[in-house]
């Protein structure tokens, strides 16, 4: 297919259509409403299920119902709406049915604003819903990546019977870029052997997330943990730029990683040997790869659009062996490359220590006026 000038939200929605999604249930919320609106036109056109639900609470439960029948089902929302979905996500995880969620992340907490942020990392990667479950979380940095990861999300969700979330910064949802949509895939023709669709010619099936006998619940938790380790072993995704001879590494995902790349190219032009490690799967997190990078790196700069959520995972990988610095814009503000370039220079030329709290050092620099916010 040819490259077209596509908006991120539209592209993710149409990518899901091409991947064979059979049911979309959602609710308007900025900055992802375009997904709902495109689906409201496209799904009925293809005679697939679409409904604007009365709330995100209802939407996620509609997805739950459709997913229980073996259908490819999805929803999309933004940060406050995703909070409302947490109960439903926990139930879906407790039933081991596949589903795909697109979260187009905005400023928070609370009502926040409609500008881009990366503040949902913890909510999606480290839980959000109650109980022990882990979702696959993929973070695109471009419209093309958003398309590719949305298609991948359905395959991963079904392969592992796990929730798969595409976590797109608000900027990715709203930007327009040249990108290519995939060919239309045919819809599935068979039904999974766990699906509930009426017991014609077979014994009854029940899909439930209640296991009132704690012994059975423990066994279930072990089972999905085993699945998680299989996912970890097979589904880590990331991209490396200029790492072959890098002495310093910037770590950032999504929009932050993309902006950092421009800064890194500028730094390289100044002779600084810096590279970028950009996680694409933030869950499973590329711990093995970072642990390997520690051996050859003199210092990391973590940059995010939140107050250091991925930072804590990086610190876990680095285990205090190497200095880490932190730089963030939050509340809906998107950093400029020259801000990150300034931080790269500070990391490279300034004093470094593997001790202390990178977040606090960053906050102190803000208070001291060392960093001025544009």
């Amino acid at each position: 297919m040819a490259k077209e000038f596509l908006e991120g939200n539209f592209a993710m929605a149409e990518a899901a259509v091409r991947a064979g999604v059979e049911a979309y249930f959602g609710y308007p919320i900025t900055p992802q409403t375009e997904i709902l609106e495109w689906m409201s036109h496209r799904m009925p056109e293809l005679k697939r299920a679409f409904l604007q639900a009365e709330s995100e609470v209802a939407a996620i439960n509609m997805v739950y119902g459709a997913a229980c029948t073996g259908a490819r089902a999805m929803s999309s929302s933004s940060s406050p709406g995703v909070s409302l979905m947490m109960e439903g996500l926990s139930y879906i995880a407790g039933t081991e049915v596949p589903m795909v969620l697109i979260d187009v992340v905005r400023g928070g907490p609370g009502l926040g604003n409609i500008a881009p942020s990366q503040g949902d990392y913890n909510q999606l990667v480290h839980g959000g819903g109650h109980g022990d479950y882990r979702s696959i979380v993929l973070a695109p940095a471009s419209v093309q990546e958003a398309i590719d990861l949305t298609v991948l999300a359905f395959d991963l969700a079904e392969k592992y019977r796990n929730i798969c979330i595409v976590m797109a910064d608000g900027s990715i949802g709203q930007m327009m870029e040249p990108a290519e949509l995939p060919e239309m895939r045919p819809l599935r023709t068979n039904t999974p052997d766990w699906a509930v669709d009426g017991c014609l010619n077979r014994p009854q099936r029940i899909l439930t997330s209640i296991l009132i006998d704690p012994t059975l619940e423990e066994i279930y938790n072990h089972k999905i943990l085993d699945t998680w380790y299989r996912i970890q072993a097979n589904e880590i995704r990331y991209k490396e730029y200029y790492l072959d001879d890098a002495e310093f590494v910037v770590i950032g995902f999504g929009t932050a990683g993309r902006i950092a790349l421009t800064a890194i190219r500028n730094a390289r032009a100044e002779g600084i040997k810096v590279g970028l490690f950009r996680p694409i799967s933030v869950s499973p997190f590329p711990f093995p790869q970072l642990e390997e990078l520690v051996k050859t790196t003199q210092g990391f700069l973590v940059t995010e659009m939140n107050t250091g959520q991925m930072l804590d995972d990086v610190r876990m990988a680095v285990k205090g062996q190497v200095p880490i610095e932190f730089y963030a814009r939050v509340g809906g503000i998107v950093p400029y490359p020259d801000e990150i370039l300034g931080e790269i220079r500070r990391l490279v030329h300034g004093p470094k220590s593997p001790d202390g709290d990178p977040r606090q050092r960053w906050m102190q620099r803000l208070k001291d006026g060392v960093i001025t916010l544009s």
Partner: protein
Amino acid sequence: MDAPSQTEIQTVYSRPVSLSNTPTHYCPGCTHGIAHRLIAEVLDEMDIREKTIGVAPVGCSVFAYNYFDFDWVEAAHGRAPAMATGMKRVLPDRFIFTYQGDGDLASIGMSEIMHVAGRGENITVIFINNAIYGMTGGQMAPTTLPGQKTTSSPHGRDVETMGYPLHMAEVLSTMEGAGYVVRRSLHDPKNIRLAKKAIRTAFETQKRGLGFSMVELLSTCSTNWGMTPQESLVWLQDYMIPVYPLQDFKVTSGLDGLKV
């Protein structure tokens, strides 16, 4: 001279096929069991057991799926109508029904039930109204009567601070999307027979695609009301029926001529 008359043995009643062989956990005399039995009888008579999917609530009937022999899913508290919507939209030819108590439907699930009725979703809802929260030990429900003592209204429901009971059948019947919304009771054989006919009509409504169908069934909770099963049936008749009249609130004309 008359020959000796021949006799034959008729089975007047036998256990419905759509029930499984699992004894229920409900309290002795709980009308949940009657409601379950009536649903199973209707599914047997319509021969739709293999095309039916039930959506279980959170409440005493959270394990309803153990007592029936067909496909079920378990919903989060109050969300059964939303789950049922998701299922009906991808499997429009199956019979999808929810089975919900008064907390599930009229409290936490208020938004979901209002909207399935508003959308005219072709699903059936069996609403068990026993004016109390059974599973969690007898707290006040949106359907609890004024003055009724529960564990969270120990001095009796005070309408000033706790509001009045909610009449769900009346409210939902006002929606254009509703096709069949009625209230029946399970407190004596005559009313149980009428309840069964209503449940049958509700499933016929779904079969004919006539919109949202709901049968509100006045039920007892002898354990949390603190009475014997027989006393609770009398209490239902004396106190609940005056507040929750047994009536047809919405019967769409598409059901004209239906004989059940």
